[in-house]
């Protein structure tokens, strides 16, 4: 509670209109980006109808699932469950429990070297897997 009070004292502006104005600017940006740039310049396509007898179609997932797609290739046979279920479910559970695991009250990134190093490693591994998944 003390933390919250201290926070409130330092706050300098109100939600309406100044903060809402900022948010509105951001929404404008997203709106223009999505509807006028992405949707018009890169229209979404509808592929060929589903065909269960096709053996040449390579189903690549959307880019945000590419890391798992690539990971599946490295866990042969009985270890498949590790990549298919273990890694995704495990990381979600760890992510959810993060505030209960990391109880260090320090918030500044420079004073949390382990947390920051972990973040960089995980991001790097995910990025590499995603890239490999995209090119192969």
């Amino acid at each position, binding site marked *: *509670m003390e933390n*919250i009070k*201290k*926070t*409130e004292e*330092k*706050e*300098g*502006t*109100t*939600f*309406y209109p*100044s*903060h809402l104005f*900022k*948010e509105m600017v*951001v*929404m404008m940006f*997203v*709106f223009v*980006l*999505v*509807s006028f740039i*992405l*949707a018009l310049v*890169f*229209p*979404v396509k*509808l*592929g060929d*109808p*589903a*065909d*269960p007898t*096709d053996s040449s*179609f390579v*189903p690549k997932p*959307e*880019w*945000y*699932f590419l890391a798992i797609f690539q990971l*599946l290739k490295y866990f042969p046979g009985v270890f*498949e*469950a590790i990549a*298919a*279920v273990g890694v995704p479910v495990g990381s*979600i559970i760890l*992510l*959810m429990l*993060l*505030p209960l695991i*990391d109880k260090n*009250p*320090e*918030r*500044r*990134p420079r004073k*949390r070297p382990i947390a*920051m190093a972990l*973040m960089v490693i995980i991001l790097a591994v995910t990025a590499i897997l995603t890239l490999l998944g995209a090119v192969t």
Partner: protein
Amino acid sequence: MFRKVYYWIDERLNIRPYIRKEILDKPVHGRLNFTYCFGGMTFFLFLLLTITGVSMAIYYVPSPDHAYDTVDYLTYQIFMGKVIRGVHHWAANLMVVTVFLHMLRVYIHGAYKKPRELNWITGVMLFVLVLSFSFTGYLLPWDQKAYWATKVGTQMPGSVPLIGDYVVRVLRGGSKIGALTLSRFYVLHVIFLPSMIAALLIGHFAMIRRQGIAEPL
């Protein structure tokens, strides 16, 4: 006109003091940079997705006979069809980006720490919901990509010993991808997940209101 209606309601429910104190005049940090906007962006994308999604649901029929044809119809034959579906597609993609950046910002700032643990946990749940949305939405057009991505995706839990096969069958509504899979995914995508996400969003926002945004570093 708006003011008149507002006063008419207020006369009966006395909501003005509440709205003033809790919404309009709620203090907010003055020095928030753009990295604080990813949550708001995500919410705005959620609104765009809801509107375009409901619009497409007017034409879409979730059956193997009609799914592909109705998506084809609503995309290419209806006025603005390409735009509506395009916005839905790109907003969904962008939402994964903004959710990711939002979480990254919160992580780097250590904003998940006491007393905001619960908000981080609801946030992770929302993240899982967003991914479930994109996975279930993928099947609905019933094109090649939809069919094969879903076949592989729903087969993944099958690798777990003992219960795996059962989970796959429940996900698919049978052993194969078919009519029952499509209606299941449709209900998840347009009824179940939206109600879950709405409930969690209310919790997520209420907690921010209660605790305030974590003090900028």
